[in-house]
């Protein structure tokens, strides 16, 4: 097989960024959840909230550490893999990344130490503040990186001279047309990812009989969060789609595998898009649905891929990623509402539902990755949409170098991912501190939950 260095550089960057995003997508939401646990404890003095905090802060620390080191890789790979990008768009991308380091990275990294290990060294109030600062820091980080990513998708506020981008209006650059949608969509995704994580792990603990009072409270927190945020996310996603249709019609055409521009376009539920034949085989379609979803009018016009021939993204990958995201979203809505309904009726969650919830521990990862594949693959062949192509900015490393480092990265990441999930399992399988404490202090077991 002929391995094109350009394709290899893309795969390598994709592997790194896919691995990296798994961890911030947990910590961004989990940081706020931890603050919530911490506040509940401070206000109610109910020790279960404190146990919940200590259980989850360990997982937070582990997740954060992997996020930091894999993020470090990213900051170097802009230069090692795409030097042309910084030479051409550095005037815009540089400051945005710089502000991320200055306003977020140091904040998170410094106060994380106090949050994790400083409980006995600072006042309760200072510890709360440190926890809040870490939560704010992770979100600020998301703000800047999504501002940059959105700018690359829908560039604004710049001028180009001799092929180099120059900033003209920073407000327009940061709050570019797709930024509000992308930022909200990703932040909500992070919160849903952590909601399913805490619900899933708690469900698993409940099923294994190692839970305590805290476990049930966490399970409930996760379920309610997911049940509220998932429908909200569907609305935000829909608005984001409208925005994409306006600014990146080729991406939408690929997401829907619409080949010819048409009015009253039908939505292809599943099918096999074929770029050679320029048609979708075995398509199962819902009439008018695509127009309805995308333009909010049954007769709305949707541009087809053939209008962008030679300059549209690979269709099958975008088409399928989009369906994985939608499918996952629907499943999340179903499961979270089902579980929330049980809580509202004051029932305990059935063992079957606990099993479903624990199977969906990493559901957020699947949906988040699929969503990013839609938007990132869907942006190709451009790195800055419509202005700078990815192929123009790649570094000229040999295939051999790239293959070796790629294999190294993939090996390392698989090893880390397996270790991460094993560590989570190990932490989750330890009997609840709260349970042990209740045993010893009251002299009898007080278990809550179906067991």
């Amino acid at each position: 097989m002929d391995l094109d260095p350009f394709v290899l550089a893309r795969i390598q960057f994709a592997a790194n960024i896919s691995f990296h995003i798994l961890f911030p997508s947990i910590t961004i939401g989990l940081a706020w959840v931890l603050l919530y646990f911490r506040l509940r404890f401070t206000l109610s003095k109910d020790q279960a909230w404190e146990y919940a905090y200590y259980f989850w802060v360990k997982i937070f620390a582990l997740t954060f550490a992997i996020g930091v080191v894999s993020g470090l890789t990213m900051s170097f790979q802009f230069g090692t893999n795409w030097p042309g990008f910084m030479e051409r768009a550095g005037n815009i991308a540089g400051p945005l990344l710089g502000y991320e380091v200055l306003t977020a990275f140091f904040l998170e990294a410094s106060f994380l130490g106090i949050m994790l290990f400083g409980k006995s060294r600072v006042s309760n109030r200072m510890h709360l503040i440190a926890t809040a600062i870490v939560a704010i820091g992770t979100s600020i980080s998301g703000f800047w990186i999504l501002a940059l990513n959105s700018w690359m998708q829908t560039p604004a506020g710049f001028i180009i001279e001799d092929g180099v981008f120059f900033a003209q209006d920073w407000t327009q650059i940061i709050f570019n047309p797709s930024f509000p949608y992308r930022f909200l969509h990703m932040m909500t995704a992070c919160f849903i990812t952590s909601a399913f994580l805490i619900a899933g792990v708690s469900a698993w603990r409940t099923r294994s009989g190692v839970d305590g009072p805290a476990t049930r409270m966490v399970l409930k927190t996760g379920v309610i969060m997911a049940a509220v945020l998932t429908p909200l996310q569907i609305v935000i996603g829909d608005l984001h789609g409208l925005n994409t249709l306006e600014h990146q019609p080729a991406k939408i055409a690929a997401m829907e595998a619409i080949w010819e521009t048409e009015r009253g376009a039908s939505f292809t539920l599943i099918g096999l898009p074929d770029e050679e034949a320029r048609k979708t085989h075995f398509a199962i379609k819902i009439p008018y649905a695509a127009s309805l979803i995308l333009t909010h009018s049954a007769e709305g016009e949707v541009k087809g891929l053939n209008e962008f021939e030679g300059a549209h993204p690979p269709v099958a990958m975008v088409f399928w990623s989009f369906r994985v995201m939608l499918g996952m979203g629907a499943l999340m809505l179903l499961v979270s509402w089902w579980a929330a309904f049980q809580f509202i009726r004051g029932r305990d969650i059935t063992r079957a539902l606990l099993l479903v919830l624990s199977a969906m521990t990493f559901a957020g990862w699947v949906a988040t990755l699929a969503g990013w594949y839609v938007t990132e693959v869907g942006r190709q062949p451009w790195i800055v949409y419509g202005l700078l192509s990815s192929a123009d900015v790649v570094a000229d490393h040999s295939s051999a170098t790239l293959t070796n480092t790629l294999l190294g990265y993939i090996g390392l990441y698989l090893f880390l991912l397996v270790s991460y999930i094993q560590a989570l399992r190990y932490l989750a399988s330890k009997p609840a501190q709260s349970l042990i404490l209740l045993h010893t202090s009251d002299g009898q077991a007080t278990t809550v939950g179906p067991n």
Partner: protein
Amino acid sequence: MEQFLPIFFVAVMGLSLLLYVILDGFDLGVGILLPLASDSEKDTMIASIGPFWDANETWIVLGVGILLIAFPKAHGIVLTALYIPVTLMLFGLILRGVAFDFRVKAGDRRKQLWNRAFFVGSLIASTSQGWMLGAYITGLQRNATSHTFAALIAFSLPALYVMLGAGWLLIKTEGLLFDKAVRWARFALPVMGLALVLVSIATPFVSHDIADRWFSLPSAIGLIPIPVSCFIAFLILHFVLRKPDVLRAGYHWVVFTAITLICLMAALGLAYSIYPYIIIGRMDLFEAAAATNSLQFVFYGVVVTLPVILLYSAFVFRVFRGKATTLSYE
């Protein structure tokens, strides 16, 4: 502004990288020393760097970040040329960064594995950084002299980090581990000293630009304080390490401080050697600089946030001052 901003940013970049070498240097050094300690001492050593390592590592992100923001043309060239050592360094930093958490969270059976990963990661990261520094000083050339010089620094930098690590342990530990740290420092000192001397002798030979600057009068006279203060710091280290009683009597900070002084002098010397180049012999910092309005936008950010960052970093070090006890989330 056009003249001032590139100089401002190169100074901030230099400061970040110097802080990185000193701060992450001590926790990388502790990582390299880890296999020499007993199991319970390992826990104390890790505890002594626990609250800090993450923020320490952020300084290299800022350093490289400024290279990227302020000197985008150089950023691409430097990182492309250093692709392999950068990749190796990242592997090392990833391994040690995660080992830190995994060693206590993956179960006792795997603790040994992660201790080893922490050591290996620290060593790989330090060696690669040395290689990068060496390659950078020789102008990113691809020839035998350049590679030999890079290899020389690749072996020297871990020795400096070990000294910083041992110096840190003297501040943060007591008892048997303290005595061990004295022994480790005593062992690493001549290695570091020799490396420092070799590097100082070799640098003018591999770069004529640098030789011209250091050996032409009258500027050479102005530079004398740099080697002199390094020599004095070295002498202090030599004597104080043979008198553990003095160290124990409240002077445990002397070792770390003396090495910090050496790092500072080396950084000043290096800055003098390189300025105004950003890539030696090829590109100066004004050629490499980003557009003035972009630099200005970040300039305000740096002026406001950097002092705040330094302030709260100091606050964190203050919160965790004193001897390290075993790390707990309580």
